[in-house]
Every structure is written in C-alpha cells, then in structure tokens.
C-alpha cells in the first residue's frame, strides 16, 4: 500500500487525516512542521505528501521548495491542505512546487477521494 | 459447588455468606474478591460497624462488620471469618461475615419480597428473599450497606463547619 506523509501542526487535523488514511489501508507517517517533514522524507520514500500551509518552524511552502530539490521527490505528488481558497495562495503553492491542494474544511470522504484521485 | 434450577428466565448469580445462622446472598457481580480476615486500621469518628480500613493493592478500603451493621451481637473472629470486598458505584468496601458458603443461580421470578417481620435484620438492607429446598436465602442490597447518603451528609456537615469559619 502507498506510503503517505501527513504534515500539520494541528494535532487534531493531523490525527483526522492519519486516522482516515490508515483506516483506508494506507501507511501514514506524521510530522508536526515542515522541518520535521523534511527529516522524515529524507529517511523514507513517500508516495504522497499532504501538508498544511501555515506551520511554525518551517511553513508548508518552504517545505515544498526544499522537498522538490531532493531528486527522489521530483514528481512525487504533494498536496497542500489549506483554508486559503483564494487563487493567489494556490498559485503560491503551485509556484513552490505543489501538485495541487485540498481546501479545508474537508471531511474524511473528500480527503479519501482526493488521495485516491492522486494515487490512482 | 454451584446449584441452579433454571426454567429459562433471567438468572442472577449470588454469593451466599453465613451470618448468625442465616444465609445471605450478595450479587456476584458486586463481589470483587474474598479474603481471609486480617486486622484493619481503626478510623477515628467512624460508626461502630466500620471496623477500619485495609490496604487492597494500594487502595484504602473501609471494612464493615456485617453483624454490627445489622445490630447483631459481635462474634469472635475465627478461621472461617472472611472479608468480602464489594464494589458499589465504583466505591470499594469490605464486609466481614462468619463464612462464605455457596454460589447460587437465582431467577428473577423466584425472588419474593421480604415480609416485614420474621428476620433478624432490618429489611431496609434486603432486596428480597429466595429459598432453595429448606434453605432460605436473604438477598442483600449491597448499595445500602455503606449508605453513601450518610457519608455525604457527614461530608456536607464538615464542609459547612469549615465554610462558616471561612465566611466569618
């Protein structure tokens, strides 16, 4: 089963994402901020990264930029989880290298639908 | 040593204990454990039937003498004297009885109300009686034994004393 990295500083959001995906059979790792996510990503190969935008220490956009520098993360789908539904933010995410986004609030079904859409 | 006479209706298991020539049943779901009598630590200002407290794996548990609780005469403790640890409303307490005797399946429709007269014990602590052959078993209402309302009233009284002081 595909390995997914869930990155969010909010324990409840991270818990919801991880629980939903694990219930669907995915293998999920969690990270609290961009820096920890980078550390985790360097040690393992994830098939998908789901990341919040606003996080302390290292925000989601910086994390995406750093991830895309790593050769093994070229082409790996990275979705931003964001409440910012305005185009500007999405474009910032895209420019940083994100694959796409999932607009908060989302429920477990929407999350799964999106993840399945990306992982096929 | 379990006896039962089942006709298919709901049955409750009771642990029966002996006390002053009578047999009492305690709902087995309320019984936590049975242990031989060991001395307890006396507590000040306690009613006479509260013998004291014992250490049950780190929990401080009060122990009552059931004879004294029922206003019967006190008996010297012997080798058969046991402490039955009971849990009611997540509170633990022990009762000291002469001996444990049996485990019974008692069906709901075999439980009869307690007549007002004819038992040595105040009917307040009983929720019914049943009989097995010649034996009559009085079913204890475990909730009433420690009478938490007593304890609450006492606590309230103590707090009131302190509060009066605080307000004064």
């Amino acid at each position, binding site marked *: 089963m595909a390995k997914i990295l869930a990155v969010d500083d909010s324990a409840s959001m991270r818990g919801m994402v991880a629980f939903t995906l694990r219930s669907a059979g995915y293998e999920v790792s969690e990270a609290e901020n961009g820096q920890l996510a980078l550390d985790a990503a360097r040690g393992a190969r994830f098939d998908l990264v789901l990341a919040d935008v606003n996080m302390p220490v290292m925000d989601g956009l910086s994390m995406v930029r750093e991830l895309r520098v790593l050769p093994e993360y070229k082409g790996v789908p990275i979705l931003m989880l964001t409440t910012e539904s305005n185009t500007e933010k999405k474009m910032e995410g895209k420019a940083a290298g994100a694959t796409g986004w999932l607009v908060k609030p989302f429920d477990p079904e929407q999350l799964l639908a999106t993840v399945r859409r*990306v992982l096929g | 040593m379990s006896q039962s006479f089942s006709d298919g209706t709901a049955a409750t298991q009771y642990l029966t204990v002996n006390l002053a020539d009578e047999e009492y049943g305690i709902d087995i779901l309320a019984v936590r454990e049975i242990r031989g009598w060991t001395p307890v630590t006396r507590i000040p200002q306690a009613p006479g039937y509260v013998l004291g407290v014992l250490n049950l794996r780190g929990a401080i548990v009060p122990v009552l003498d059931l004879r004294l609780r029922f206003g019967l005469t006190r008996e010297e403790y012997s080798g058969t004297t046991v402490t039955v640890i009971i849990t009611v409303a997540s509170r633990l307490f022990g009762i000291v009885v002469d001996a444990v005797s049996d485990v019974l399946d008692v069906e709901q429709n075999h439980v009869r109300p307690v007549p007002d007269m004819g038992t040595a014990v105040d009917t307040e602590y009983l929720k019914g009686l049943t009989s097995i052959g010649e034996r009559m078993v009085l079913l204890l209402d475990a909730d009433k034994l420690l009478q938490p309302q007593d304890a609450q009233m006492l606590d309230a009284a103590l707090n009131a004393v302190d509060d009066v002081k605080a307000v004064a």
Partner: protein
Amino acid sequence: MSTVSLAQFHQVFFEESLEGLDAMEAALLALDQGGDAELVHLIFRAAHSIKGGAATFGFPDMAAFTHEAESLLDELRDGRRATDGAIVELLLRTVDCLRGMFDRAQTGQPLANAQSDELRQQLAATVGRSVVAPAGKTIDKSTAQSGWVIQFQPHPGMLAGGNDPLRLLRELAELGQLTVEAQLDRLPALDALDPSECHLGWRIELIGAATREAIVAVFEWVEGECDLSIEPLAQVATAQPSNIVEAVAAPAVQNVAAKAVAGSNDAGSVRVGIDKIDGLIDLVGELVITQAMLDQFREEFDPSRIALLQHGLAQLARHTRTLQESVMGIRMLPIGSVFNRFPRLVRDLTQKLGKLVKLEMIGEHTELDKTVLEKIGDPLVHLVRNAIDHGLEMPEKRRAAGKNETGTLRLEAFHRGGSIVVEIVDDGAGLNRDAIVAKALQKGLIQSADGLSDETVNELIFQPGFSTAATTTDLSGRGVGMDVVRRNVTDLGGSVAIKSRPGAGTTFTITLPLTLAIIDGLSAAVGEECYIVPLVSIVESVQLRADAVRSVVGGGELFRFRDEYLPIVRLHEQFGCPGAKQQIEDGLVIVVEADTGRVGLFIDGLIGQQQAVVKSLEANYRRVEGISGATILADGSVALIIDVAGLVRMQSRRKAA
C-alpha cells in the same frame, strides 16, 4: 469508508485550540508592548488553525466567527493595517469569546450567542465590511453540451510538480467517453530527451453531458503548467486557452454532537514530554537487568556470593528511588501555565484603575505537581489583584513620593529545599498599620493595638472576618478574603507569609510542597496505633514534666513553649485510641504548626521517620476530620496521616465552644 467519526478528534481539537488561544493572548499582550511582526504571524497561525479545525470538525459558527478575526489578522500581517491598542483590545475580546465557545462546545451547547454575534459584527466592520448572510452558491452554470474538444499541452516541468497527465485523462474518462489523440510534435530527438519532462500533448474529444466546470475542475491543479483549451464539440474554431474558473468547493460540514466527548475526561490528563518517558523506559530497563541478576540467587545460593547479592539489592534500592522520582516527575508541570494569565489580568486591572504597573515574571519554568498547580491559581490571582488594588499607588502619588510613576509587580517562583516558593512582590505603599488596626478594632478582632508588633498587625489581614467584601467567589477571586487565600494554601500543605515596609512595598511568600503525592513524615505511636505526622509541620518534640502542664477552665491543658502557652491535644482522646499512655511525663509532646496556630500533640512516642505515599481516604470512604489521608507501611498495613491544620482548627473550635 464513511465510518470515520469526527467526534473522536474533538477533545484533541479543544485542547490544542485552548493552548492556541493562550498563545494568542500572550502574543497580543506582547504586541501591545510593542512586539515584532513575528507575533502577528503567530497570532494569525493560531486563529487560522482554530478556523480550519472548527470547520473540519463540525463547528461552523466558530469557523465563521474566527474567519472574521482571521481577516483582520491578515490585514495586520500584510501591513495593510497598523496594530493599535483598540485592535489588540478587540482581538483579546475575540480570544475570550472563543474560549466561551469552546466551553459551550464541550458541553454540546450552541456556540454562537448574542455576545459572539455582536463581536463578529464588530470584527467584520473593522475589516471594512459587514457580515452578510451566507448566500447560496452562485456558480455560473454553463449549459451542458453534448461534448467537448480539449486541447491539452503540458509544459515540460509539469511532471516534476507531481501531476501525472495519465491521472488527468483517467479523471476525464469518468466524465464521459473519450477519444484521445497524442500529439508528438514537440517530442525532441531521443538523445535530447529528458525522461523527467513531459513533451507529449493531447487532443481529447469528450462525449457526454459534462459541464465546462467539471472539466475545468479536472485541470484545476495544472493551471499555469499547461496550455489548455476547452471548446464545445460543434464549434471547434480558434482555440484560446481558457482562464480556469475557480471551483467552489461546498463546505461539507457535518454536525457532530460534541456530547460524546464532553464529560468523558473527568480524570484529567497530563501531557508528558518524550524525554521523560524515555527516561522511564531506560530505568525500567535497568530494573529488569537488576532483577535478572538477583534472580540468579534463586537457583543457587553460595555464601561466597553474598557481596554480589548486597550489591544487587543496593542497586535495586537506587533504581526504585530514581524510578519513584521520575514517575513523580510526570505529574510536574511548569508554573508558567498559571503565570500566563497574569499579563492579561494586570493589563485589564491597571487600565481600569488608571495605574501604571510593570509586571515581571521570573522562574516560569519551575515545576510543581499538577494538583498543586491547579489549586494555586485562585490564591495567586487574589494576591495579584490585591497588590494592584491596594498595594501599588496611583502615578501622581508615586511621583509625589519620589518613586517611579510605574510600579513594579514581580512574580517569582523558585525551589527552596523540598519546597516551591512563589513570591508576589510589589513596590507600593506597603501595609497601612493604622488602617488595619482600625478595621480590626471595628471588627472586634482585637481589643487594643497596644504592644502589638507590626508583624502581628500584618497577620491580622489573614483573620477570618477581616475582609469586608461579600463572599462571592467569581473567577477573578474578587470578594474572597485573605483568610480564604491562606486556607487554600494551607489545604495544599503550604503556608503564606507576609513582609511589608511602609512606602517600600509588600512581599507575600507562598511556600508549597513539591508534590502532594509523597510526604516526609514521622510515625508516631499512640496506644497500639501508628499515625504519620508530616515533617513540615513539626517544630520540635519535647518531653514534659507533669508540673509543666497547667489545666485551664473547661478542661484544656496548656504548656509553656518558648515564650508562649500552647494547648495540648491528646491524640488518644481526639482519635479514641485504646491502650495509650495517659501521663504526660510518660509520653512525648510534638509541637506542630499550621498557619492557624501551634499546638502540642501528645503521643506515646516516635517510631521513626519515613516517606509516605499519600492515599485518599475519601476515594472509598469519606473525609475524616483531623486526618488528611492514609499511607501504606512497609508491612502492608495502613497508617493514617494527621492533618495538622485540621487538628489546630478543631482545637480552636473547642476553645471557642
């Protein structure tokens, strides 16, 4: 997979949000003092997380409310608006309002109320628009066509961004029947081909009732990374790359009752750092090794190995002690979580009173037991209020006295021996002896102040009945007398002392035990029984001759200790212990001290000193006056722990009766 219940994440959401609100409040207060832009980011993040969580976990009212605050914060963050006192005030009220919403969420009540609605309007008005009722979705619905022709030419870098054209084609296929034609015209020569880049393009015919929006949604993520045109099947003409319309995601918010979570956490919880847990695991590892070592002796015991056995037992004792300390450490939390509330309190109070006060907090990282921590808040609030209300003077008065207009209030926590000390120090006017004496006379607490030392007069403020305020215990502690402060601290096994110099200020010193779970005590024999007397309350033990005791009217006994007469409490009488010594000269008198006074406890003798793990008597039984709890002795039996303050209270009551 629709079985994931969101309710299970509510408690975590509440906890993290309340922490976020605390952080927001602290940052707002720091911002008010001229803090930097990073604070605004922190505040924004906290609000943003709450909004996201509220929307996700089924609290739309909270999400909508927080959204307004977030918009305002966004303006601050972008520098479109400057931070001023009014904005900080508004945001502080927002924090309060959100706390109220969380309170209500935990008990399953409706979140919004008149107050939150008004505040929401105010936030919206500040941002520059009023809240409009959420209108129905207004999407420009283009009519469905019989089919579409899609020209899709990814830019070479699209693959690196994680978007796979095959996925897009797969999604299109769900909308209708596809005819796909690959366009190879941009394919470079093989030797120039970079396999991580995308060179193919596609012309796609989609037959079906799909709307343009549905197709646009498929390509939502690749806008800017491809050339795209979508034309109705009939009129394939000049293909202009279309601008992708922003898709509106309907907020699918489930309303999950919060009741399932509320009330399920009565036992409370402690967050424990990983390092503490790792330390425990290491210790358990050591214990296992020691146990294995000792286990060898079960198989064969040879006297020549006795030294090894002793070594093993010593090791076991050491590990057990360390383990005990580490486990107690889990309950230890920094006092900062209590101090946190003071910047806000001080700000609000000083603004109201027109005073200038600088608050200094030192030692926020000092740890103390969770139970102590929970109960020390209210007494501290009272002392802080008191210092600002009565201690620190108005600016003009301070100026006239040659002091800095701005008063200083210092909260400091530190370890001293086995205790935690919390000091509340102000540089205000100090206690006013004349005012205290006048009030004490008026209340009948004293007959005359002649010969009373300043210390004795200061102590009068702790007397029950000194405080005139009505005894309404609102959250801020207003109206509660100093006697209650002292009693709360005493109930925790601590003490309060006061030091004051006219014109220079007042210092309250609260001394608290590190933990309530373990105490050092002396075991005292009374007849056949054994009682534990907490070491902290013991002043001295003395052996009295019979003629050193004076009987007083009413049956009491007094003895002279240093320069005062103390009442004797015969423990065997108080507790009804059988077989105890009756003659004063046969036993021992322990002088014990509580805030409320000193007494001499008459016991048979001392058995020894020991650490006692405090167990509750109330858990299964009830409170017993004069007893604070129980402990388990080495032989497994139970010993009761004496509540010195309670005994002193009982004694003074008897005296009064």
